């Protein structure tokens, strides 16, 4: 009996071993290293392993870093809200209204990604430019005299592109959760007098609440860390995001420790943002007990995020 136990333990170790080793080498060690590095400094463009808090005090003092963090948080929040808001009707439509070729409808959401992020951002820029399709049309028709300038190099453009960037990633978990909502539950609600909208609000939404949180989280993280859209279509003031600052410290100013410190701060920010919805979900369900019901994504989904 004990032999079998050990045998089974061994089986687990063999299956888990490679992934665990990989994770140790490429997740744990780099993270620890990056955190350590954030307490070191550069001298003459070379890394010096002298422990200090300078990078963090620079962060605390530097107005520009705070602005970078706030910009990123704002981007994340907007994209999360909009990506979820757009994913919901889409997912609902595919789940409950599309009968055949669901694959096509779902796949089309993902394939939109395959144009490549850069080209997608670029496409918006072309579309919204002063000589772009939209402005030319508006001026030809006579709706506007001058090109609309808010369309591009603006916060509006950032929100638009980042929402588009993040939407498929919000859509996937939301659709997966909706796929597990039995239509009979909505029918039951209708039977009990709920109009379509109430069916959606009172039954559908609560059932997929955890997936909404997951989808919003994905969208948030993508937009929070993104800096291509901001520098491509944003106003100059928005080009400073904390993600951009991390990148610049590595790719430009060669201040790795500062970059690592900002990266560490990003990790902390994400951790905070991730725990908030987890707490909220726990409060959301007064019934209390965590349970695996028909619609909620599996606990591991939640667990991984919480």
């Amino acid at each position: 009996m004990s032999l079998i136990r050990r045998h089974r333990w061994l089986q687990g170790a063999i299956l888990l071993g490679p992934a665990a080793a990989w994770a140790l080498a490429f997740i744990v060690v780099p993270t620890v290293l990056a955190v350590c590095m954030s307490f070191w400094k550069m001298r003459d463009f070379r890394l010096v392993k002298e422990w200090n808090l300078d990078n963090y005090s620079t962060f605390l003092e530097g107005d520009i870093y705070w602005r970078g963090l706030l910009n990123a948080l704002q981007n994340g929040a907007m994209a999360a809200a909009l990506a979820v808001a757009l994913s919901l009707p889409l997912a609902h439509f595919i789940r409950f209204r599309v009968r055949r070729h669901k694959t096509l409808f779902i796949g089309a959401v993902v394939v939109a990604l395959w144009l490549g992020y850069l080209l997608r951002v670029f496409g918006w820029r072309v579309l919204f430019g002063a000589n772009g399709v939209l402005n030319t049309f508006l001026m030809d028709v006579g709706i506007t005299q001058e090109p609309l300038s808010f369309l591009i190099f603006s916060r509006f453009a950032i929100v638009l592109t980042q929402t588009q960037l993040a939407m498929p990633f919000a859509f996937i978990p939301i659709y997966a959760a909706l796929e597990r909502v039995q239509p009979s539950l909505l029918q039951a609600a209708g039977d009990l007098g709920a109009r379509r909208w109430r069916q959606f609000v009172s039954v559908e939404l609560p059932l997929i609440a955890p997936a909404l949180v997951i989808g919003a989280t994905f969208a948030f993280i993508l937009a929070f860390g993104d800096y291509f859209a901001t520098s491509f279509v944003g106003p100059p003031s928005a080009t400073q995001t904390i993600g951009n600052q991390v990148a610049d410290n590595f790719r430009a100013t060669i201040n790795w420790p500062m970059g690592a410190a900002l990266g560490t701060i990003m990790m902390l920010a994400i951790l905070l943002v991730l725990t908030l919805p987890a707490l909220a979900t726990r409060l959301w369900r007064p019934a209390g007990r965590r349970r695996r019901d028909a619609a909620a994504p599996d606990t591991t989904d939640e667990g991984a995020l919480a």
Partner: protein
Amino acid sequence: MSAARAATGSTPTDRPAAAATAREGAAPAVSVRDVTKAFEGHQAVRGVSFDVGRTEFFAMLGPSGCGKTTTLKMIAGFEQPTSGEIAIAGRVANGEPPFKRDVNTVFQNYALFPHLSVRDNVAFGLRMKGVGRRERAKTAEEALERVGLKGYGRRPVPGLSGGEQQRIAVARALVNRPAVLLLDEPLGALDLKLRQAMQSELKQIQHDAGIAFVYVTHDQSEALTMADRIAVMHGGRVMQIGDPVSIYERPENRFVADFIGESSFLEATALGMRGDDRVEVELAGGAVVCGVGGARPRGSAVTVAIRPEKVRLAAAGDDDAGSAEENAVTGVVTSAVYGGSDTVYELLAPGGTLKARVAMDPGQGHGVSTYAVGDRVCARFAVAATVAIAPDA
């Protein structure tokens, strides 16, 4: 189609004016008129008509895929008929969404909301109607009490047993005081004992609530014990409508005879009438028997249906002749299966295989089979228990 029409025994569908008149005064709770439903070329329901009285317990009975659920859904408003008309409490409901219909449904899988507590499930309909929180809670608790689940209000739904969920689904529907309650195999998932307990409970609830129940089941014994009237369905059509006794004792066609309870079918040829509703036939193997049935042209093929439990057996002897009230055929036992309270024998008889379910003689203690395979026996069954139907009807 013809079977269905004939079976309704009410206003023919090609005279809508008459139907309209019927709606005044005490219109039926549900009136289904010549309804069909096609799914992408597949006809799920093919011209179904029936009325359900205001306080009637009406069962739709039939094998899997016969269109029961589809018909129920059309009454509830989840599906729209391809043709035909559905009226609820005298008002044509075609095109109306479910939330405007004065019906409620108990779903096959209960469809309780997993994110709500038991009480919030029951109170859902009231909430949709805008009833205040306090009153909602009170009414829901009362409804729970009525189905024997007092004190369950705060519990979460997942984890409740099938029987409990079933009763909550009923409470959730009844709390809205609908004119009609639709139930789709509400007991299908429960085990025998619980099913039996719930059957009488539901019957009681229907009686107390004083409303119409439309009850879908594929379990004939459930339909027989619970319903005031039964519509037997097959392949999207209604094969017969009637009260349990007439459905059981006077099946109109082979499908009903076979689906409701058991029947043996013997092939025969019509000889002539004996009285108004008795027909005399000659079994394929030679014996002459008499059964209940309408006029048949002499020489036409007839099928004779006999219920196994209506057959008495005796060792074959000299006096194996029938009488005016009782048929008698002689056959050879080909199998005998012990079943606790009875034994089922199969006889090779003229016209086919005749089954006899012989109850233990109540006076006798142990269940020991009386006849062995190979024995020649005489089977007797009342003329009143013999039904002559059209072959393959």
